[in-house]
């Protein structure tokens, strides 16, 4: 073997580190996000896109198409014919949904994701779909880790000018998650916010280096898991839609599809969902939701943080309150009055602060083919939602006037068991 000196051993390592350092700290962008990439990302449900900043920034800066963020959870995944993404594309609307959310995303996760896309929110429009299932007593943030990225925290921290009660609330929430708690740097910085101490200039420098590295990582990798949803799901659906953008035609088409696809059960649940998710457990599920309760939950305050962010960005936002499949909840014993009380509590929180664009479908869960399965909007439900979404977005941005009430961050509000009287008197 050739005799080797130190340079032969460590030279390659040093060169590798220099190259990596250059790659991560270079001030110019290394990748190019095309309009096709953005269109694919808008229906991809990719966690990398959700957690990242690069694709979202590119989408909301796109000049050729107005991408509007649609925040929600698992219902967004139901890419069927009447889904908002299909309708917008087919009828060449002046907007195209950029879907943010999937099974497991709730308000806190959305709040963090919003930190990475101020350009998608500032004096722009958005749609936010609320599911009452988020508002459980035990705040089970099991999926928090799936949708969390340090980039969100770095962005959030960087963008704090004056520490608000929302910031302190978010700081306390983050400090309970091990991804933040166990990270020495973020733990220290977030603790400062929690204690109402502004970040020092040294802190801000650390953050900006971190941000640059994380952003570069995001730019390099967030496009990796590109999906084929556009080609495989959106394109075929567009072919099935009627040529004319007309509510009555859409509704009759939706009803037809709903009839065809819900033949193996009496709940009007989509056949495949029923077959794989329900059929075998049908007996066990009888009355299984009798003790569900959505009235007292930390989620109300998480939602408040989202509202504060909308207010901060002057976002013109339409809230959609999603119903539950009534045929199904009659079987599982979900208590109606409990459900409506939780809806009232959400609406009180929205309207009292000036969020008046609310499409409340909570009483429509019993209509034919409104739901695709147990808790997700389907054929006729999407058509009904479109009747609200389309005019709202087509009209374009309207100046907003929100007045945030920080008492909605309190445990007093979280634990308020709603009655018409105490909702009215809550200040």
């Amino acid at each position, binding site marked *: 073997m050739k*005799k*080797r*000196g*130190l340079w*032969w*051993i*460590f030279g390659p*390592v040093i060169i590798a580190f220099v190259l990596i350092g250059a790659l991560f700290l270079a001030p110019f962008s290394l990748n190019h996000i095309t309009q096709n990439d953005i269109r694919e990302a808008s229906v991809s449900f990719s966690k990398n896109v959700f957690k990242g900043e690069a694709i979202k920034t590119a989408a909301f800066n796109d000049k050729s198409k107005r991408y509007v963020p649609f925040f929600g959870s698992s219902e967004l995944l139901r890419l069927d014919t009447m889904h908002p993404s299909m309708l917008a594309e087919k009828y060449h609307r002046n907007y195209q949904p950029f879907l943010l959310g999937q099974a497991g995303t709730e308000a806190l996760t959305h709040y963090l994701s919003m930190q990475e896309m101020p350009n998608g929110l500032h004096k722009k429009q958005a749609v936010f779909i609320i599911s009452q299932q988020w508002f459980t007593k035990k705040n089970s943030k099991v999926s928090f880790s799936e949708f969390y990225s340090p980039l969100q925290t770095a962005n959030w921290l960087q963008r704090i000018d004056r520490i608000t009660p929302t910031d302190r609330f978010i700081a306390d929430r983050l400090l309970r998650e091990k991804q933040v708690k166990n990270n*020495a740097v973020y733990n220290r910085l977030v603790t400062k916010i929690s204690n109402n101490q502004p970040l020092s200039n040294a802190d801000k420098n650390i953050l900006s280096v971190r941000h640059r590295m994380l952003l570069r990582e995001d730019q390099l990798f967030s496009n990796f898991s590109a999906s084929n949803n556009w080609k495989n799901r959106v394109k075929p659906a567009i072919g099935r839609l009627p040529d004319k953008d007309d509510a009555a035609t859409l509704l009759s088409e939706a009803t037809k599809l709903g009839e065809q696809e819900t033949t193996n059960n009496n709940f009007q649940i989509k056949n495949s969902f029923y077959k794989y998710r329900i059929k*075998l457990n049908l007996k066990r599920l009888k009355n299984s939701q009798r003790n569900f309760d959505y009235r007292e939950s930390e989620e109300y305050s998480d939602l408040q943080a989202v509202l504060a962010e909308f207010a901060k960005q002057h976002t013109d936002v339409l809230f959609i309150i999603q119903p539950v499949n009534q045929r199904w909840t009659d079987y599982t014993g979900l208590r109606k009055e409990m459900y409506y009380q939780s809806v009232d509590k959400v609406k009180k929180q929205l309207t009292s602060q000036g969020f008046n664009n609310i499409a409340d479908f909570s009483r429509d869960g019993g209509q034919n083919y409104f739901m695709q399965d147990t808790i997700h909007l389907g054929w006729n439900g999407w058509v009904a939602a479109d009747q609200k979404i389309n005019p709202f977005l087509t009209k374009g941005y309207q100046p907003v006037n929100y007045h945030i009430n920080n008492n909605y961050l309190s445990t007093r509000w979280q634990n308020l068991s709603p009655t018409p009287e105490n909702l009215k008197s809550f200040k």
Partner: protein
Amino acid sequence: MLNLQPYADPKYFVILLLALAPLAIGLYFGKRFAWYEVIVSFAFIFLMFNGKKYHEGYAIIGFMIWQWLLVWGYTLYRKKANNTVVFYVVTLLAILPLFLVKLSAPTHWTHVATLLGFLGISYLTFRSVGMILETRDGSIKEFNPWLFLRFMLFMPTISSGPIDRYRRFIADVTSVPDRDKYLKMLEKAVWYFFLGFLYNFVISAYFFQSFVLPQVKSLAIESASVHGGLTWWLVPVMYASGLNLFFNFAGYSLFAVATSYVMGIEVPMNFNKPFLSKNLKEFWNRWHMTLSFWFRDYIFMRFVFLIMKKKWIKSRVTTSNLAYIFNMLVMGFWHGLHWYYIVYGLFHGVGLVINDAWLRYKKKHNVPHNKFTEALAIFITFNVVMVSFLIFDGFLDKLWFK
């Protein structure tokens, strides 16, 4: 306060290599700074067991005092006498802390686990028990407290091996490799570090643990709930968890070996392309080698000698078969007192018995041997091992009993 878990993240490697730099420079110029080495070792062990893990710190101190007294006392005793009962009692006492910690898992004795348990207790127990056995044999004659400490608390291998032997270790630690040799060690160390990064961080942590395994496991759980516990999804779970086990552990071992090389100590390798083994016996000569050699030398061989010496069993075949099963069962129990570890041990014990029978059959009969049969042998061995790793993984326990 800073807490450093061995080889856990890039930060650890930066701190570790900075701390080791003076030692490496010394070795390069032919000097071994023993005191500095001990201080660095202690500092890293302290940083492993501080903060919330302080109870592990107390546990390792208690453990070290206990082992110190046993090994020292036994060396003194051994100079005067050699009673078998004393030897057994001392060995059992040396194993006692580990045994109690293992027992605390199924019995839920959390206070015992908190009081006695710490990361690396198994590997430290192997080191001291090995010393006691070699003292009994007469191959270790003196108790040198300084070298005992350096051997037991050698930082790179403290958490998960490789398991070194005392005499080999002190030969290294009391000498300095010449410059050519040390440069070769450094070259290997760099290679092992980077191979370890690939194995542990990229393939195991990223590809398997955060990408493949969660998906196939959840699909298996979903499908098994419909099909009465058995599903084809167990096949990808098996390969993914088996390969993950290898890349994770082999990666850690490479880090430990590389760190030792930087410190001028040639700790033995732990893995040697195990999945190219043509039979199960060869597999155990290539997989977690320092553990299997430890078991071979201190359990298998001693068990066989004992049976032969006492003439309990005449047949050599029966003796070795019994020894295989005993050896692997002990290994299974050592992994933990859960059914799947014990079944894993039994599986390998029986596997080795069958393997031996086949080798005897092959010797007697004219079995064809060519490239194809070798490939077939590798394929069969690999799959048998994968099945055993599926058992070992504990996923079946979760799937069927939880």
